[in-house]
């Protein structure tokens, strides 16, 4: 009973995270806002769905696989977002949306 309720709670929160990502992809105006919304709320949504099934499942192998996927997602999602942001910065895409560029002040000599 408790596990069913907990699973329902995590499922609803995951779906809310995902629909937030979908709306943010349309409504946000520049690339960095969209990257921010996509990376954080997608990680939250996928982790919520994984937790929802981890709570209600009763086989050990399935729970271990879900834990492995959780750890993998927690490690790889920020790496992908950082690589994309760095690529977009180096290509100078959407430069008008950056109001204060601290990165360029720090490394103005090595970036050329």
């Amino acid at each position, binding site marked *: 009973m408790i596990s069913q309720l907990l699973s329902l709670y995590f499922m609803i929160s995951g779906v809310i995270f*995902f629909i937030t990502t979908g709306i943010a*992809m349309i409504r946000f105006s520049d690339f960095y806002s969209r990257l921010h919304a*996509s990376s954080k709320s997608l990680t939250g949504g996928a982790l919520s769905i994984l937790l929802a099934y981890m709570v209600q499942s009763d086989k050990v192998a399935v729970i271990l696989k879900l834990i492995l996927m959780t750890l993998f997602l927690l490690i790889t999602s920020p790496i992908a977002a950082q690589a994309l942001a760095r690529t977009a910065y180096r290509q100078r895409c959407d430069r008008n949306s950056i109001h204060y560029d601290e990165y360029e002040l720090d490394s103005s000599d090595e970036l050329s």
Partner: protein
Amino acid sequence: MIYIPLFIIMCSIILTFYRVVKGPTIPDRITAADSIGTQFFAVIIMLAFLFKADFFLDIAMVYAVLLFVDILVMAKYLESKRVSDND
């Protein structure tokens, strides 16, 4: 009961696909494609429990690894190319 979250996630995938088609720059499209991939990863896990088939979890694991390598390779390639379509 499980069809309602599946339907909502599919609607979110369609909303994200708008950004893949329209997105003004190339990193926009890559980000939107990454979002679609992660949402489809959640759909695969929900299908595994809907069909009660455990091997779908292995497929989801390999899918997550391939998605990560895809995004990283595309980002590194574009960083060395210095292409841009709006400047």
